[in-house]
């Protein structure tokens, strides 16, 4: 059985610091759009931290939730793409094939998580900021949709390395940039088809929920909601 990549996010650990957001920009050659375009809501944060305020002063609570492409097994973005640029890979990812994309933006329209971003203009880096660009990841041009890929370049590199060394991939060996950076270890990435993996364990922990699961998208990200304090009993 091939790997089926998934993630688990423990919202009881997440502090909303956005290390994941910046790490993703650094790893995936996401360009900065600038003040004008940001005002038009065109900033391309492949992973964003949503925060929800509840209550009125003085009884205020805030909850954080990192949201990114859920790599849905029944992805609404896949059937609407006229060129199959958005398709489901054999390892359970929603692949975005930039060279096929003709920029109809139907996929972004269909996505209920609002995690697909369009390049309205050719991206620009004031030199020498471009020296930071990751050679393992494409630089997307105008007219192309982009989104979180679960750092597919790292997945590929890990698989190729394991094959070269003639060994199995260890659970936790591959970490997307966001998972690698998270200071509270709130994010876990792994193989959902491996019942011993950390992500499988968390997915079946009984605390796991899916975002907008009732829409039938079958997302691969398991959110473990913030817990509450029960004194010193087993929680």
């Amino acid at each position, binding site marked *: 059985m091939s790997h089926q990549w998934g993630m688990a996010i423990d919202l009881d650990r997440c502090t909303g610091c956005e290390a994941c957001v910046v790490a993703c920009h650094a790893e995936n050659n996401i360009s900065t759009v600038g003040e004008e375009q940001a005002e038009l809501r065109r900033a391309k944060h492949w992973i964003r931290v949503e925060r929800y305020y509840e209550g009125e002063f003085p009884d205020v609570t805030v909850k954080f939730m990192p949201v990114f492409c859920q790599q849905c097994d029944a992805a609404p973005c896949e059937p609407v793409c006229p060129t199959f640029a958005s398709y489901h890979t054999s390892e359970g990812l929603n692949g975005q*094939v930039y060279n096929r994309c003709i920029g109809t933006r139907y996929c972004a329209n269909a996505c209920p998580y609002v995690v697909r971003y369009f390049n309205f*203009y050719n991206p620009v880096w004031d030199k020498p900021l471009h020296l930071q660009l990751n050679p393992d990841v494409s630089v997307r041009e*105008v007219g192309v949709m982009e989104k979180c890929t679960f750092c597919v370049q790292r997945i*590929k590199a890990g698989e190729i390395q394991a094959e070269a060394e003639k060994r199995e991939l260890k659970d936790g060996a591959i970490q997307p940039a966001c998972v690698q950076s998270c200071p509270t270890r709130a994010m876990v990435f792994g193989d959902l088809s491996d019942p011993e993996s950390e992500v499988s364990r968390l997915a079946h922990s009984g605390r796991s929920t899916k975002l907008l699961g009732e829409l039938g998208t079958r997302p691969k990200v398991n959110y473990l909601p913030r817990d509450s304090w029960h004194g010193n009993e087993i929680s």
Partner: protein
Amino acid sequence: MLRSAFRVSHYSRVAIAIGVVVLGLAILERVLPAQGTGSSPSAQSPDVFTTAHRTVSDSVREFFGLREKPVQPIAYTHKVHLGNGMQCTDCHVGVDQGPDARIPSVNFCMTCHQVIATDKPEIKKLAAYRARGEDIPWQRVYGFEPSAHVKFNHAPHIRAGVDCSVCHGDMRQQTVAERKVDHTMGFCLNCHRQKNVSVDCVTCHF
């Protein structure tokens, strides 16, 4: 010839006209200045890196996959070097470790050529580059258009035992490297299918 073209119906003519306009716009869009970050520089400025093309002709060339024949600064001959018993990997180091097959710097060439064939005009050119502290500006022979978004990785292919000549032709018959093998997607897929290796899009396009 023209007369038969004009026999095309009115609606077909409109469709053709729209198609040509759309094609033109698609090409033009890739040349448009981009939105900057704090400043708004144009695509032509040497101060920014952008995916925008410098000119319309560059854009058209990329769109149709037209590439000029590379003109090398020095008439390097594979025939002679391979004929003298060298291996591909003597110069193209790293091809079994990572994605790229390195073309060595002029220092590497000079380790031999400070004594070998020093009277030949091409070797004199080589020595002149080194004397000036310049590396040789080799022109790329094989490669993919940026908009193809191909991330080719040499190492798994070498490890799988694919010989260099399968994709690059028999270099022992070539002097300067030429594009003898056309790297269309079909070329890659044929072999992948034969060897029963993944043909998933994200294997190469990401």
